[in-house]
């Protein structure tokens, strides 16, 4: 995907996808409120989790646009521990995962040297991606309903990603999705029943940080993630 703010049309397409995506949490809140008015017990924590994840998606979109507009000068780089970002992401995803019946697992094999990146951007990208995958998993042919947040070394660098047993997360589905973004109501038809905006927002944020979202494998699972270069000289204090 081309960096959003560099190309207004692309940015508008992302916004259209976001608008389409936001119908879902609003619809969930509206119908559950109505259910309460029909005399049914409604879990307020679920409504709060839905609203929180929608707000986070909007914030992530704004962050992606700001990072892209500001260019490298606006990008505050710092040494970041990939493991700690994954821990925090898992924490942010836990309430949404609970209501979708998705089990979250952390798989961080070993200690990794820090990477030089924008921590807020990396976490926002992984969280957006995570919410999108959690919403999609029950409708995929996922046997386990488990989302694994993992980090591993590859020959290209450290890969931080989110993985499931669904084979739908392929390079081809991402490529086609990028082509259809803003033109189709459901650009990632094999992955998500919605607009999949969280996945495209994650990609936009990563691109603004000179990274990109790409299909990856880990522990025999299929996933999407970002490859970053670690450097021992960036050891955290």
């Amino acid at each position, binding site marked *: 995907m081309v960096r959003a703010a560099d190309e207004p049309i692309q940015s508008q397409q992302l916004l259209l996808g976001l608008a389409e995506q936001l*119908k879902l949490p609003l619809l969930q809140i509206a*119908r559950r409120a109505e259910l309460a008015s029909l005399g*049914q017990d409604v879990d307020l924590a679920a409504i709060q989790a839905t609203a929180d994840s929608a707000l986070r998606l909007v914030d992530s979109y704004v962050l992606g646009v700001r990072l892209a507009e500001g260019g490298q000068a606006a990008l505050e780089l710092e040494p970041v521990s990939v493991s700690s970002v994954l821990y925090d992401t898992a924490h942010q995803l836990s309430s949404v995962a609970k209501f*979708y019946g998705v089990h979250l697992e952390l798989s961080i094999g070993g200690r990794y040297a820090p990477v030089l990146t924008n921590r807020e951007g990396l976490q926002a990208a992984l969280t957006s991606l995570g919410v999108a995958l959690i919403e999609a998993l029950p409708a995929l042919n996922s046997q386990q309903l488990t989302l694994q947040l993992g980090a591993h070394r590859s020959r290209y660098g450290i890969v931080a990603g989110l993985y499931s047993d669904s084979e739908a997360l392929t390079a081809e589905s991402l490529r086609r999705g990028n082509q259809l973004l803003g033109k189709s*109501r459901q650009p990632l*038809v094999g992955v998500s*029943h919605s607009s999949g905006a969280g996945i495209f927002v994650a990609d936009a944020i990563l691109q603004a940080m000179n990274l990109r979202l790409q299909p990856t494998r880990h522990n025999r699972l299929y996933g999407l993630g970002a490859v970053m270069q670690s450097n021992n000289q960036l050891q955290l204090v």
Partner: protein
Amino acid sequence: MKIVLLEPDKVLANTYRQALTQAGHKVVMCATAQAAIFAADELKPDLVIMELQLTSHSGIEFLYEFRSYDDWTAVPVIVLTNVPAGEFSDCWSLLRDQLGVQGYHYKPLTSLRTLLRAVSAVNPVTV
């Protein structure tokens, strides 16, 4: 009434199921077209409520398969979808006349009460 609810979003499906169950219906939730076919085989539904936007398959593909079985040619189907009417006005006659869709409801503008009224208005077919 026995209802197969084909809704890919689990949270939304649970909400519809609660409302329909409270109204006295038996509901089986399905997130995929394939699961809905299996569920229909087991439940022998009086009604199918379905989203058109599904993962991997379109709702129209599901309808073609569903109607291909003799037992289900007359089972009423209500479409409850995020796709606005204007976007499939060209194929509405196909949905209504060939695939037997009895009603269309745009999800964002369809309250639970409206859905319950639409379900009540359906006359179950004895298979």
